[in-house]
């Protein structure tokens, strides 16, 4: 019930959810059979910070949103530089984009058909 068939495959969310819950239960069951060597009050409960000492102020540990994808943005810096610079914030440029797109659409419509 409730599934969709796309002509290429079938997607049934109810079956998927039941399967997900089943796998979750199996996973939890496997986990519960594991070795219970966890001891409270020892160094095991401390977060692992590459061997560094935990800072006094817990907020220093919070990776702020802006830093989250630093690496990826850096890797794509060539693309990002161009795209961010095209969002200049100047209204004339926005109008120019619109007129340019309009011109392009006209060229396509009349040239290609």
């Amino acid at each position: 019930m409730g599934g969709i068939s796309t002509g290429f495959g079938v997607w049934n969310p109810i079956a998927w959810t039941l399967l997900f819950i089943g796998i979750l239960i199996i996973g939890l069951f496997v986990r519960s059979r594991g070795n219970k060597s966890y001891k409270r009050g020892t160094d095991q409960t401390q977060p692992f910070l590459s061997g560094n000492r935990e800072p006094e102020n817990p907020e220093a540990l919070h990776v702020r949103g802006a830093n989250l994808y630093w690496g990826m943005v850096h890797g794509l810096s060539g693309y990002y530089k161009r795209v961010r610079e095209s969002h200049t914030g100047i209204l004339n440029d926005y109008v120019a984009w619109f007129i340019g797109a309009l011109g392009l659409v006209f060229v396509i419509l009349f040239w290609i058909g």
Partner: protein
Amino acid sequence: MSIGSFSFDVTASGQFPYIIAAILVAFGLYALLFKRNLIKMVIGITLIETGVNLFLVMVGYRSGGAAPIYTYANPGQGMVLPTPQALTLTSIVIGLATTALLLSFAIFVHRHYGTLDVRKIKELRG
């Protein structure tokens, strides 16, 4: 060229208003693209609007037609099309509202930014 009792003026002078409309739109676009002052950009928008309105009125014009008012034309006399005139009127009313809103925004932008130079009003970018 004629349809029924109306005729379309296809001579050069008959096309004159269309040319004026095109020129008005072009001037308006020029102002929007190259003028840096917010007020001048608003003027550019109103110029485009005027051009479009002129075009609308001209679309409904039939040479020899009377003003489309019931009590003005003789029975049997042709009238110019009333619909585009109603449209133009509506468009003018809308234009009044948009222009008023744009100018109010310009006043407040000037109060906050201390300038009307569009190149300096770009806190929202990137």
